[in-house]
């Protein structure tokens, strides 16, 4: 039997992962019908579908751990910005295909390390979700990494765009490796991997892909933080307003 503090920490952890997947999947879904080429339109949507799929599993699990009867939709559609726990990186707007790819790669390179380790979690619920997710995320990081290389190395125009996107999004990466007291508890119980361990693996992968993309790794300056505590950018409010419109406008309806 899990003690109440660990249970609370696990709820928060699943919520953070679920929210990050949902918000990022939502962002990618905005591309559907508008991508640079038909094949890539289909590919991006596949990634979006995977991410929303992970979000459903994680939010449903969070609701179960919380034990207050909230299901995936209750959590997705009836929380406002203050209660969302996603990474700031995930909520950044698509801007152009270059920003989308950089955002995706920086996330995927983190997610693949995370789920790989989380599949060995002592918590069976998380381990099961991670075992499924890691297969999909391995493909995501290959896809976004390949595109990062193509566009970094492609033309002068694409190189400049990728460099700018990388510099703009880099300050959102620090938050992925934060650790708070709730995570200390989960790491100690073997439920969650140590973020510091993720960071080393993430650094190595990012360095290798950036080198092939002929892009320089930006310096680790001041990092934007707060998404994990509900302190978000201005972008998330609009995303949620759009996403939650129907359930908010018709609170009694079932869809």
């Amino acid at each position, binding site marked *: 039997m899990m003690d109440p503090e660990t249970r609370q920490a696990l709820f928060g952890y699943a919520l953070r992962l679920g929210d990050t997947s949902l918000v990022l999947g939502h962002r990618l879904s905005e591309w559907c019908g508008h991508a640079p*080429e038909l*094949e890539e339109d*289909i*590919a991006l949507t596949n990634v979006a579908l995977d991410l929303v799929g992970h979000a459903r599993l994680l939010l449903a699990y969070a609701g179960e751990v919380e034990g207050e009867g909230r299901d995936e939709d209750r959590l997705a559609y009836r929380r406002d910005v203050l209660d969302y726990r996603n990474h700031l990186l995930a909520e950044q707007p698509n801007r152009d295909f270059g920003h989308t790819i950089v955002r995706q790669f920086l996330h995927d390179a983190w997610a693949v390390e995370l789920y790989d380790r989380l599949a060995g979690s002592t918590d069976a619920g998380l381990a099961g979700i991670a075992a499924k997710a890691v297969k999909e995320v391995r493909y995501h990081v290959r896809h976004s990494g*390949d595109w990062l290389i193509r566009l970094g190395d492609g033309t002068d125009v694409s190189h400049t765009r990728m460099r700018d996107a990388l510099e703009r999004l880099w300050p959102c990466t620090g938050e992925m490796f934060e650790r708070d007291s709730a995570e200390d508890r989960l790491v100690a119980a073997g439920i969650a991997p140590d973020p510091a361990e993720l960071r080393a693996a993430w650094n190595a992968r990012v360095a290798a892909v950036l080198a092939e993309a002929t892009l320089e790794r930006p310096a680790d300056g001041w990092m934007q933080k707060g998404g994990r505590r509900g302190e978000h950018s201005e972008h998330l409010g609009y995303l949620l307003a759009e996403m939650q419109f129907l359930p908010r406008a018709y609170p009694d309806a079932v869809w």
Partner: protein
Amino acid sequence: MDRKDWPLFEIFIRPKNGLSHKHVGSLHAADARMALDNARDVYTRRGEGVSVWAVPAASIAASDPSDKASLFEPADDKVYRHPTFYDIPPEVKNI
């Protein structure tokens, strides 16, 4: 406006081990690796395969349909290539 197509690739998929790759269609990709990834995303969304070949369409040598008669019809009268050409008494088994 850019009007230059990415090259065309023909896509072959092995539905499961034990079966040959089968032509399923084509797609455009800038390079071979993209062609493989795109084939996975375009042609296996419902678990249709376990292995993919992407072949540049320009590399395929194809027979000319007007040669169909000379290439393929001669095979039609070579009945001796088929087992039913040979009469074996019914009491002989396992042959």
